[in-house]
């Protein structure tokens, strides 16, 4: 699984991206985020406020964190967007 981080979430985690083999126990976006927060202080700090964490699966916005990860090979985590 390719994981991408952007903006201050990227800065807090300290990495722009990772390639990770996810455990088969991680079936949904919520389970993925819960596991991410256990990976260290930087991850916990970056993801502490659920309401400002945005997720994209295969470059499509995902608003429902119960969505399953079947068929997904790219997950992006970022704060609310501020373009334009």
């Amino acid at each position, binding site marked *: 699984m390719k994981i991408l981080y952007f*903006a201050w979430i990227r800065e807090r985690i300290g990495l722009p991206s990772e390639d990770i083999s996810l455990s088969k126990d991680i079936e949904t976006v919520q389970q993925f985020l819960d596991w991410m927060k256990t990976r260290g202080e930087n991850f916990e700090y970056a993801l502490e406020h659920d309401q400002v964490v945005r997720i994209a699966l295969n*470059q499509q916005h995902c608003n429902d964190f119960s969505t399953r990860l079947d068929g997904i090979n790219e997950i*992006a985590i*970022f704060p609310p967007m*501020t373009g*334009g």
Partner: protein
Amino acid sequence: MTAKPVVRVQAQDFDTAKELEAMTKGQTNIGAVVSFTGLCRDEGGVLETLELEHYAGMATAQLNDIAQQACKRWPLEHLLVIHRYGKIPPGKNIVLVIATSSHRQAAFDGASFVMDFLKTNAPFWKKEHFKDGSTGQWVEAKDKDDKARDRWD
């Protein structure tokens, strides 16, 4: 008439005037042209540069998606969306939307719709770098931008 929108995500600057000319030149059946240009403000003189981070693949896909929705909702002849990334100094262009139509309201609404969705849905993030050399601040998303988007529901 369903326009095939043109979307460009690029680091280099664009020229609103040239894009407008290219879109309308030699055409004799466009009634209305609306352009929106978003520029970098100096925030009262304190801003050195605005840094735009983006999620490359998704940015193009999202802008295409938004532009195609606009073309479905309004009878647009042409729709162009350009969004820059990288470091942009005050007074320089960030984003351009041009919509043309036979009808003025369609051109206004099409361009306005694209801007409202782009603000909240396109994966770009702004960081401000100030002239005093202080570390950049990430711009916070605004509730009013969500509301501006939701009025189109």
